[in-house]
């Protein structure tokens, strides 16, 4: 057995102080295997040691919340005896090293988080960030990463049989060395049939089910807790390989085994594999767990206990069954052709005892690993790191029509159909509204209600002000849901940041968390869980601070009100009005990015109270059947939203504003929704009730989008031309290289 040297400790990414803490918790030097266990469980990825202190500030309670953070997923009561489990998780680091498998196993991991609680996954969404496609140096590589990630998500989700119903995708040079793959999943179950990862009942058997253990993914969690360097590509063996077919069998077998009533607790083996599942289950129940490595199904020979414990092989679960009823569980797994092996028992010692052929190789108090991880209050008493100037550059458009066409065919704003057409977004026949809308809608067959869901994140805004950016993200996500008629009820979040040991980055994280907390409390969408991904840096270059939120909303099942205009001759109403803007608040926009290639100033100003009233108003307009179409304004502002609504029918808009044309057309002020209606008067009545503006801005018509301000023509474009530019852009950018 290897001697524990300072070098070995450092190689496990543990600091000398952390090592001292291990020694004092154990009252002795750890064994090599124990060192490995601590290194993964105390990694940033598993322990949240840099963020935990601040995550406590987030609101987590609400009338719909059945389960907040700390479990495999958050749970929301949707009424009629049913509940929803949902969560988002990142697989950023593996997806850079091996895009296809990295993304595929990201999907697999979050799906297990959902069905380990007893819920059947019914929807997946993805929030993706890639490097710029047009960079001369990295464009080709970034395109390959994007293609690989999309193919990986498609491969896993399609085969597993869960629809990928939406998401978002942004390209920016700041993600050149650190693409982000955040996967959201949602499942449904009866609310009295929730399963938890707990090892209750001393003497109960501990059963390993699913795929055999191999050497893949060892130290994946530690890899995800460090910056990338030139050597990171050598970490490819740390990336796991997924098998969605096996996961599908595991899903069906687990749900069927849960029906027997013989399962006491169950937890998936995700990051840190067998180690985290066994000690967390024991720790939650206040029990001990004793397992012997000799019984663990292995796909390679000669694996050491260290390797078996730290393997992140996919499609595995650990469960505790009622003693005497093991056979009921074994029978189900046999039917599905899966391994199910008793590898140990629940004890009353409160310790994780790992044996190898009877010989003890690790003996650690469960609580020490799972709950006494280091907690850092990392320095953050500086301004959040930013590189952008505050002052606006001088700019003046020479051709607004050309600007608009360039915007709608830019990588960020173009149609993402090239991506989502590769996803089966309809399997399970619940998809009322799929990708491409403001929010996805999935009906629940059992209840007559539907779940709307949306993912949002805007790194540009957050790089200018992490606090205001985070609030804007929550506001937009809730607006997305309100625009399809849903009431936002709960949030999951994925915090993607750089190296927290740098105070400027830590300050970004703290500000963003506080902004997130404030907005989630205000909009009454408590946070029920999520994930933190730090060290998204390569060679000292950090990504934009990129918090991603996923919010779900509840609504009655019915035909959706979609983004696109349906009929010519309808009034076009700009709910929320033109909104205020100025040069300072224009520097985070897509116009600044795509047309001016610049970033400055502050994100758009948000009035949360006004925003909330706009959301209430649009919900009522949509649900009362008055709105024929509804589309919230976000990236690209009014002109881009107008193009997005003009799939087949265009519109003519006449404005009366003091704003200069670039700002009027493209500013990204929140709290605005574009609606077409046959009854303006009734719409305005609703708007008055909520004290918000409903500006009658124009009329829908065939063929063109026209925008004028005080009789000055600003935009006049053919919609066929714009749509074809918008639809073909991404494929061309990925393949035209």
């Amino acid at each position, binding site marked *: 057995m290897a001697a524990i040297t300072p070098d070995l400790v450092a190689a496990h990414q543990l600091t000398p102080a952390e090592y001292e803490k291990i020694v004092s918790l154990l009252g002795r030097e750890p064994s090599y295997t124990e060192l490995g266990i601590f290194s993964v469980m105390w990694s940033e990825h598993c322990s949240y040691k840099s963020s935990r202190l601040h995550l406590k500030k987030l609101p987590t309670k609400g009338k719909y919340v059945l389960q907040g953070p700390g479990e495999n997923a958050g749970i929301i009561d949707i009424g009629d005896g049913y509940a929803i489990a949902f969560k988002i998780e990142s697989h950023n680091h593996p997806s850079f090293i091996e895009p296809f498998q990295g993304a595929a196993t990201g999907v697999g991991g979050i799906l297990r988080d959902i069905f380990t609680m007893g819920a059947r996954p019914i929807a997946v969404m993805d929030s993706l960030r890639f490097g710029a496609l047009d960079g001369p140096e990295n464009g080709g590589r970034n395109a390959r990463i994007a293609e690989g990630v999309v*193919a990986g998500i*498609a491969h896993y989700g*399609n*085969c*597993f*049989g869960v629809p990928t119903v939406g998401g978002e995708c942004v390209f920016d040079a700041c993600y050149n060395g650190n693409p982000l793959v955040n996967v959201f999943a949602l499942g449904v179950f009866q609310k009295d049939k929730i399963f938890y990862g707990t090892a209750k009942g001393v003497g109960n058997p501990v059963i390993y089910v699913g795929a055999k253990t191999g050497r893949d993914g060892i130290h994946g969690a530690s890899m995800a807790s460090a910056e990338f360097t030139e050597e990171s590509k050598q970490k490819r063996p740390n990336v796991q390989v997924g*098998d*969605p*077919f*096996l996961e*599908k*069998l595991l899903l069906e077998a687990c749900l069927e085994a849960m029906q027997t009533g013989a399962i006491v607790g169950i937890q998936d083996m995700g990051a840190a594999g067998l180690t985290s599942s066994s000690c967390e289950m024991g720790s939650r129940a206040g029990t001990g767990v004793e397992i012997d490595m000799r019984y663990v199904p292995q796909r390679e020979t000669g694996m050491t206990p260290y390797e078996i414990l730290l393997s992140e092989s996919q499609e595995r679960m650990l469960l505790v069954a009622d003693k005497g009823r093991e056979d009921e569980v074994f029978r189900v797994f046999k039917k*599905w*052709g899966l391994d199910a092996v008793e590898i140990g028992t629940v004890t009353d010692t409160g310790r994780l005892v790992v044996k190898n052929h009877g010989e003890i190789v690790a003996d650690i108090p469960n609580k020490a690993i799972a709950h006494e991880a280091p907690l850092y209050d990392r320095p953050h008493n500086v301004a959040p790191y930013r590189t952008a100037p505050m002052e606006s550059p001088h700019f003046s458009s020479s051709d607004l029509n050309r600007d608009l066409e360039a915007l709608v065919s830019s990588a960020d704003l173009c149609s993402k159909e090239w991506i*989502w*057409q*590769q*996803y*089966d*977004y*309809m*399997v*399970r*026949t619940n*998809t*009322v509204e799929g990708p491409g809308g403001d929010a996805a809608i999935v*009906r629940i*067959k059992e209840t007559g209600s539907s779940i709307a869901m949306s993912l949002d994140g805007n790194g540009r805004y957050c790089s200018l002000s992490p606090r205001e950016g985070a609030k804007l993200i929550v506001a937009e996500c809730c607006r997305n849901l309100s625009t399809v008629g849903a009431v936002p009820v709960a949030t999951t979040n994925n915090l993607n940041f750089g190296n927290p040991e740098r105070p400027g980055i830590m300050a970004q994280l703290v500000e963003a968390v506080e902004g997130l907390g404030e907005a989630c409390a205000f909009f009454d969408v408590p946070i029920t869980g999520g994930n933190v991904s730090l060290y998204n840096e390569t060679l000292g270059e950090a990504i934009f601070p990129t918090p991603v939120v996923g919010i779900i909303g509840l609504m009655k*099942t*019915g*035909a959706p009100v979609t983004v696109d205009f349906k009929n010519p001759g309808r009034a076009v109403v700009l709910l929320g009005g033109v909104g205020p803007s100025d040069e300072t608040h224009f520097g985070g926009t897509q116009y600044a990015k795509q047309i001016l290639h610049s970033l400055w100033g502050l994100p758009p100003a948000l009035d949360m109270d006004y925003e909330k009233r706009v959301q209430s108003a649009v919900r009522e307009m949509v649900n009362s059947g008055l709105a024929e179409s509804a589309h919230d304004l976000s990236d690209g502002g009014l002109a881009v939203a107008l193009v997005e609504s003009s799939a087949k029918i265009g519109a003519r808009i006449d404005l009366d504003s003091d704003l200069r044309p670039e700002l009027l057309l493209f500013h990204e002020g929140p709290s605005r929704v574009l609606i077409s209606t046959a009854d303006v008067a009734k719409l305005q009545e609703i708007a008055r009730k909520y004290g918000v503006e409903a500006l009658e801005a124009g009329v829908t018509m065939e063929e063109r989008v026209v925008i004028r301000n005080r009789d000055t023509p600003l935009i006049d474009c053919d919609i066929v031309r714009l749509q074809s530019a918008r639809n073909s852009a991404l494929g061309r950018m990925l393949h035209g290289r």
Partner: protein
Amino acid sequence: MFPMKFGVIVFPGSNCDHDAWYAVARILGEKADFIWHDAPRLGDVDAVILPGGFSYGDYLRCGAIARFSPVMSAVKKFAAYGGLVLGICNGFQILVESGLLPGALLRNRGLKFVCKPLELRLETSDSPFSALGHKGQIVRMPIAHGEGCYHADDRTLDELEAEDRVVFRYVDNPNGSARDIAGILNRERNVMGLMPHPERASESLMGSSDGLVVLQSMISTYAVK
């Protein structure tokens, strides 16, 4: 009138089994049972649906392993006695691998999985799967597959056409299928393979109910018997 009884075969990796069940049992109010892949017999079913999905993970080749499952012997026997067999998507792939239908399904021309609603032209109403439709009718159903490019030699294709065995064609071919073929019959006309998903187009809430023409034709054929 007694309800018709459908048997929906469940292979490990089937994932449209429940959708097919929901369409016939809940939307159309017929009876439907799931039949596990190692069942030696089908029981008293009046028609069989081989649903979409990734049977046996689509390892080796789509449908290549499923053809060896015990239930497929029963399905073959059922078909030989004239029973109605509908293979949807992966089910179509299994039917060609099993030799119940001619040809093969290759990777899509674009080499990518494609999921989208599209238009099909109903080419013949002379089948139990399209009797309620009319020749030339345009129906909307979604596709969702990576390997749906129908391929057969010219003689087989000529034969399919001469015998009026092409039931559906793509209006705008999404995958490179020979002669735009989306769905075909066996010579006896009681087995159909179809790449698009009628069960996903069985209620307007899902965007289209045009797929009902397939399922309702099967039911009407049964009622006539």
